[in-house]
Every structure is written in structure tokens, then in C-alpha cells.
């Protein structure tokens, strides 16, 4: 199950891509599993099919999905080694999140604790 908020300032395409990434990371979608068609997901979420198609394409560019034109969308087998792009992306996103937290008055210790908690929660969800 993926969720989006249409009133959020974050673009719908980003939200869908992020929700799918999370579902892949947590094992909700396994390697080789087929995903819903663009029309089905767009219909369920009440968004334009092009928004879903762009989100799928983005994940295909990140080598997370295989999009076969006019056919199914399948989750790709994860690569054994973490990619350089994934590491760079994580660093960038962490830097942004830390900057926002510091500006919001959160101390470094608390940021570390929140990060550890989030990582532990994610690990538990993945195991379950």
C-alpha cells in the first residue's frame, strides 16, 4: 500500500516515487514482483496517469524498476554493491535534513538519536 497527500507542497510525482522506493526498500515489493499498471495506480490515487508514468520512469532510471513499453512494470533485482549514486544521494539528502533540523533548533545529539531511531524502525519493518 502506498500513500500520497495531494495537499502537500511536494510534487505528486516525487511522493509516488518516494512511496515506491520505500515499498521496495521494506520488501513490500520483492525483486521480480510485478507492479500495478500506470492506469491502475493513477486511478487508485486519483492522479493523472502521466504523473505515475513519470514516477515509474524515474525509478527505472535509478535502476530500481524495469518498465517494458506497453507491458508490465517489474521490480529489478537489487545490485550486490551499493552504488555511488545511492551514496551521493544519501549524503545530499542527509545534509539537507540536518540543515533544516539545525535551523529548526534541534541539537546534534537529538538529530543523531532521531536518525538512529528511524533506522531501527525501518529495520524492524523490513524484518516483519
Amino acid at each position, binding site marked *: 500500500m502506498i500513500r*500520497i497527500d*495531494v495537499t502537500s507542497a511536494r510534487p505528486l510525482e516525487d511522493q509516488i516515487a518516494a512511496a515506491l522506493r520505500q515499498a521496495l526498500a521494506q520488501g513490500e515489493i520483492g525483486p521480480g514482483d510485478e507492479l*500495478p499498471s500506470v492506469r*491502475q495506480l493513477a486511478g487508485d*490515487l486519483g492522479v493523472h496517469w502521466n504523473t505515475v508514468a513519470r514516477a515509474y520512469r524515474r525509478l527505472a532510471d535509478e535502476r530500481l524498476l524495469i518498465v517494458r513499453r506497453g507491458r508490465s512494470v517489474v521490480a529489478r533485482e537489487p545490485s550486490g554493491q551499493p552504488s555511488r549514486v545511492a551514496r551521493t544521494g544519501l549524503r545530499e539528502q542527509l545534509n539537507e535534513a540536518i540543515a533544516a533540523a539545525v535551523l529548526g533548533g534541534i541539537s546534534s545529539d537529538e538529530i543523531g538519536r532521531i536518525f538512529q531511531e528511524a533506522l531501527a524502525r525501518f529495520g524492524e519493518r523490513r524484518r516483519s
Partner: protein
Amino acid sequence: MTAQQVLQIAVACIATATPWLVARIALSVASRHAMSVGAAFPPPRAMHILTRATLVALPLAATAGWFLTPPSLLMGAVDVAAFFVLSILGLRALSEIDSASRPARDVQASERAASLRPRRLRDYVPLAWHAVPFVACVSGLALLAWRLESVSSSRLFVPVSFILAAPVFLWLYEVWMRSEISGAGSVDVDHRHADQRRRQRIRQILVVETILIVGLVGIGHALLGLDWKAPGIRVVLGTTGGALLAITGCAFALSSELNRRRYRDAGSASQASR
């Protein structure tokens, strides 16, 4: 009164009543849906106007069919005129039904969820059931090709039209079933019961599709062997029955959007929240 005259009156009545029949089916689909979700559904005023106009036009068209000797070109013009004039009122009625049923169809939610399980037609209908309309349609067409050489070439229009309507309905209803499964508006607020409702709706569509195709192919073939130069009661019943079946099939296909819940589009939802 000859059977030809009865046929002429029946055709005049069908041509006159078609807009009302289509709007009445749409109204019944929309009002039943509104009732099932507990939404208000004010009766559209244009429907009352259409009903009154049809009640006035029906006896006039039937009287014209009674007095004009068949086959009459003037009667054909009366049928076409009655259909077009009442269609204008019918379109207005359909538009009002569409607007009145919006509160029962539009789901306003800023947070939306979607299942990641792909849905396919075979998950909802057994393959053997699904094959019935296809088999009926293909056999009807093959039989038509085989019989065409042996039947008289005069008055083929009605029976051949009924048989050729079968693939059109097959396509229309297959598209409808697929859009119920994966198309826009397949949302249901209660996700636990969504699949059950979807299954029920898809099976209903398949039943109507099968009745339409088997009925039209059957009636078409029954009419193909009859003498159209001196039509009997079977020609009258077959033509009337086939026409009513085809009109009902079109009306249901036209009403397909009227009982489908959908999210209001993302743009309007985000504007509303600001």
C-alpha cells in the same frame, strides 16, 4: 391492420421513446448509486420535461404510423424528426443527471492510498465465463458469412445490423470491464470491501454483455431467414426486441460513469485546502 403497419408504428414508438429510455436508465443507475452511498440526489427537472414531451410525441408518432401507408418515406422523416427533437431534451436530461450525481461520485480526500497488487480481469471472472460472449460473437459472424449467400439480398439491413452490433458491444463492454479494474475512478473509500464490489460490478457487466451479444446475434439470425416483403408477427417482435436490447445496451454503457466513485482531481483538491 397489416403486420407492416404494426412494424411501422413500433419503429415510430421506439424512435420517439429512445431518448427517454436512455435517460431513464441513466437516472435509475445514478439514483440507485446515490442511495447506496447515502448522498442526496435531487430529481433533475429536464427529466420531467423529457417525460412529458415523450408522452405527447408518442401518440402523435403512433397516429402518423397508423395513417401513412407503409413503406412511407414521410414516416421515416417523422421518426428521424421525433428522435432528434427529443434527443435534444434527452441530452439536457443526461447532463443534469450527471451534475446531480456528482456529490455521490466525487470523493474528496487529501490523503490517498493505493494497493501495489496488480489487478487483472482473470482475477474477477473465470475464463470460461469470459469466453462466452466472444464465442457467441465469432460464431454469429461466421454463421452470417455462411448464410449470406443463401438468403435473399433484399431487406438485409435490420438483421445484419443486429449481428454486426454484437462486436461493437463486445468491444464497448470489454473496455468498460477493463476500466472498472484499472481505469480512473476505480477508487473505493473502504479498501477491504473494494475488491468484492469490483468483482460484483464486473460480473454484472459480463452478464449484460453476454445477454446483449447472444440476444442480438440470435435475433439477427432469426430475422435473416424471414420474409421481409410480407412481414409477419415474428418480424415485428424480432425487430422491436432487437432494437430495445441494443438501446438498453447503449444506455447502460452511457451510464457507466454514473455509479463510479472517484477522487476529485488532485489540482482541485489542493486548491480547496488552501
